[in-house]
């Protein structure tokens, strides 16, 4: 069937609406919609008509009404509509029941209960509704009090209406009620769970290490006695820091209420203070100290800043030693190198005499982890922590080609890693991509020819591209430094300068956006992950070469879609 016949039905419609339109042009337009824009003629009908109407000046533009968000004051629930927002009314609180619920991935205390309208009248003249408190207003919502709610909204589900008291809502006590309902005390959680979040926790755990320590105040005003140690259960172990003396010995099984989990560097730690309650707990089946204190074997991918007492095996890629003079004027030697395992790469720093050769396999015990330039760095202090393995734990890895595939979401939710490959779509091209000036002293980017630290400077030119990589669930900043940027662009810094001189910085970024926005790319590089999010320093970036057809096939396979 020719295009003319194929679209004849639609063409008839367009002709009715736009009498002057040329039939061949209409057919061509339907063909374009179908072939180039992937919109079948039935769906394209309105668009095509609009196009030809516009061409003949028939089109009238529509206007969008602007919303008005006004406060709605009512006396009775009956006056409320099913989707009223920003409502103000006075109610009597009947019940208030807190509970913990996941809100945006975090455990939050919410509460539900009953409220009655018309609070100043006897209760037989009142109507009772459910409410939900999303904003932790418990202190102001004590049962039998009368309150004014402002900025609350109506929620309707299954024909039943209720009131949502939001975080932004205001609750004003008009008449005091009984005592406020205290925040519920959580059940004890496992060490694994406790390590995942910051905030108050209760745990049942065995003390597997505990020793007094001292913190020296930075202002020189003295010291604070503390206790450091480690708690463990069958799900894992976690360090603790106590600001109060710990009476329980190593090996005791204890229940700890109202401790605080905080992160020290990247590693969660339980903080114990004078409001924390610690008591002996009895459970014969709880794992013994011996079992729990076995040091943990960790792979490079799982290293986190601040970890101690870990066992790991690495393959040496390179090794150097460096002499320096420390603050006390002593000359010291530090040895370090790049190491790998099947899950990635990192650096190893040794404060003892060891000279491994590239390709050697080292087994490390009681190693600790420090961050160096944002990446985890294994540190060993004594020779007896290292043994050079005779037997290969794995087939030797070729360092030139060792990129570990990590899905973006996994990468972003883990720790900093080197030597990874990941994929995603470019969803932002930052306008400060291009040529920058760096401070010759500290390499900071100069702003208006000045460094934050070193004042006005004649900067060194550098090239970088700042992008955002996103897979629809997670995202990361993506930075291409000079070498990978030059290699992606296919031109060197000087040529970029010439281009920018011609089109201006905006023109350069606009061109970049045309080439990159919404494109799927594959990145080799390293990832720095911290509280602010993740940043990937690309060593190279290529366009994903998977064809749409293959991508569609794998999607259909994954989700069992049959055409």
């Amino acid at each position, binding site marked *: 069937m*020719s295009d003319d016949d*194929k679209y004849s*039905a*639609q063409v*008839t*419609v367009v002709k009715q609406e736009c009498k002057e339109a040329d039939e061949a042009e209409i057919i061509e337009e339907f063909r374009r919609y*179908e*072939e180039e*824009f*992937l*919109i*079948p*003629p*039935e*769906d394209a009908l309105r*668009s095509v008509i*609009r*196009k030809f109407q*516009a061409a003949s000046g028939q089109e009238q533009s529509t206007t*969008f*009404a602007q*919303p008005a*968000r006004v406060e709605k004051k009512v006396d009775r629930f009956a006056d409320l509509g099913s989707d009223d*927002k920003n409502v103000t009314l006075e109610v009597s609180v009947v019940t208030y029941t807190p509970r913990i619920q*996941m*809100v945006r*991935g975090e455990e939050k205390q919410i509460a539900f209960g009953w409220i009655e309208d018309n609070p100043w009248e006897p209760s037989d003249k009142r109507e009772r509704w459910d409410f939900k408190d999303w904003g932790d207003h418990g202190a102001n919502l004590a049962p039998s009090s009368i309150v004014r709610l402002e900025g609350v909204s109506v929620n309707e*589900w299954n024909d039943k209406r209720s009131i949502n008291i939001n*975080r*932004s809502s205001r609750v004003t006590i008009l008449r005091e009620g009984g005592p406020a309902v205290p925040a519920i005390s959580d059940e004890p959680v496992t060490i694994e769970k406790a390590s995942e979040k*910051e905030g108050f926790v209760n745990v049942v755990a065995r003390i597997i290490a505990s020793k007094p320590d001292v*913190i020296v105040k*930075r202002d020189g*005003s*003295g010291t*604070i006695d503390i206790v450091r140690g480690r708690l463990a259960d069958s799900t894992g172990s976690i360090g603790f820091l106590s600001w109060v003396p710990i009476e329980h010995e190593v090996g005791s099984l204890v229940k700890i209420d109202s401790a605080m989990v*905080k992160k*020290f560097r990247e590693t969660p730690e339980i903080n114990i203070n004078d409001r924390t309650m610690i008591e002996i707990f009895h459970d014969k089946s709880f794992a013994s100290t011996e079992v729990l204190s076995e040091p943990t074997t960790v792979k490079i991918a799982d290293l986190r800043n601040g970890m101690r007492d870990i066992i790991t095996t690495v393959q040496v890629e390179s090794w150097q030693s460096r002499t320096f003079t420390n603050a006390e004027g002593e000359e010291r030697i530090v040895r370090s190198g790049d190491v790998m395992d099947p899950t990635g790469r990192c650096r190893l720093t040794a404060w003892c005499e060891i000279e491994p050769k590239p390709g050697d396999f080292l087994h490390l015990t009681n190693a600790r982890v420090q961050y160096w330039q944002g990446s985890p760095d294994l540190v060993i202090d004594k020779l007896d922590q290292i043994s050079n393995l005779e037997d290969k734990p794995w087939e030797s890895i070729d360092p030139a080609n060792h990129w570990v595939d990590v899905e973006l979401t996994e990468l972003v939710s883990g720790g900093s890693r080197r030597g990874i490959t990941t994929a995603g*779509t470019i*969803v*932002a091209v930052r306008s400060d991509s291009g040529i920058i000036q760096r401070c010759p002293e500290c390499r900071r980017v100069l702003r208006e020819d000045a460094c934050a630290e070193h004042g006005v400077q004649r900067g060194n030119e550098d090239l970088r591209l700042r992008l955002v990589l*996103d897979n*629809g669930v997670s*995202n990361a900043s993506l930075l291409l430094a000079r070498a990978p940027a030059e290699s992606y662009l296919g031109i060197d810094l000087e040529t970029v300068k010439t281009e920018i001189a011609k089109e201006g910085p905006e023109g350069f970024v606009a061109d970049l*956006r*045309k080439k990159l*926005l*919404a494109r*799927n790319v594959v990145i080799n590089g390293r990832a720095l992950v911290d*509280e*602010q999010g993740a940043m990937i320093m690309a060593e190279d970036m290529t366009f994903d070469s998977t*064809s*749409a*057809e293959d*991508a*569609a096939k794998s*999607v259909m396979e994954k*989700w069992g*879609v049959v*055409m």
Partner: protein
Amino acid sequence: MGGGYVIQQTTRRNARQSAIRIFAQEYSDANLPEEGSGEYDPSFIITKLGAKINRALIGGVIDRLERREGDNGPSYNGHLRDATGGTHRFNIAAFQPELHADIEELLHRFEAGDRFLMMVVGKARWFESDDGGIFTSFRAEEFSVVERETYVRWLVDTAAATLRRLDAQVASLESDLTPAGLEAAGVPRDLVDGMILARGHYGEFDAEIYRVGVLQGLQMAMNTSGNFEAAPPESFDVQPTTTTEPQQSTVMDGVPFTPTTSSEPDGNVDDVIKTAISIADQGQGVPYDSLVLAAVQAGFSRLVAEDAIDDLRDVKCEIIEPRFGFFQILE
């Protein structure tokens, strides 16, 4: 505690919201906003399938683009029509002058009659009409005209994202509406919160309607991958009709077209429309354009067809529009 121990800053900046891949159909059906409580907390539109959308990556062919002159400078409104036939609305505000030069260039092309595929990264926004309706759109952050190949990859990625939500939605029907319950049922973590809110807000609906858009997207990737532009136009003539026939396999487009050469209307327009619905409706309703087309096929003018549809729906009450743009016979 003295100055010795530096307490880690617990006030963490809001992490950047990921760009949800979503078809116009799912987004325009959504009417549940969630406003952030704090000044810098993100706001979201929650869709029926539980997507919590603050930022999205959308695509389609430019269908409308216009400039408005305001007191603070020009602003721009645009429509993108994607493979589901739905329309994504986006806006560029007067306070985004850094985007004005680029959109002016596109506006110029658009007004000259050019149509092109575009992708937009935008932030969800909405307004509420006086009668409480929620109208969703996006404020563009970045946009670009893209090659077909890039768009088709987006169709595939968006189909995958929609299937993932459909799967989660089905799983949620048989589990407790609690975070733990949903996670146990296999709902991915990033969808748990939105799924609870969606299930609490939207009544029962047929989630399968979203599968149609998914199938359309995937089918396009399968059929048209690669060498379409390279193929000479004549080749379409000789291809078997089944491959060039647009999406007739889907239930939504099943209105039978009986090509007629007669320009005289035959029969009653109401009957034509009702017959078209009763033949083509397989539970999802029949799209507006298909009904108009059926009426035009039978020799009625577009205007008559549109009036008749309105009349059947609003006055005679013989058909209903349970979902915008889709019609069913009122039993």
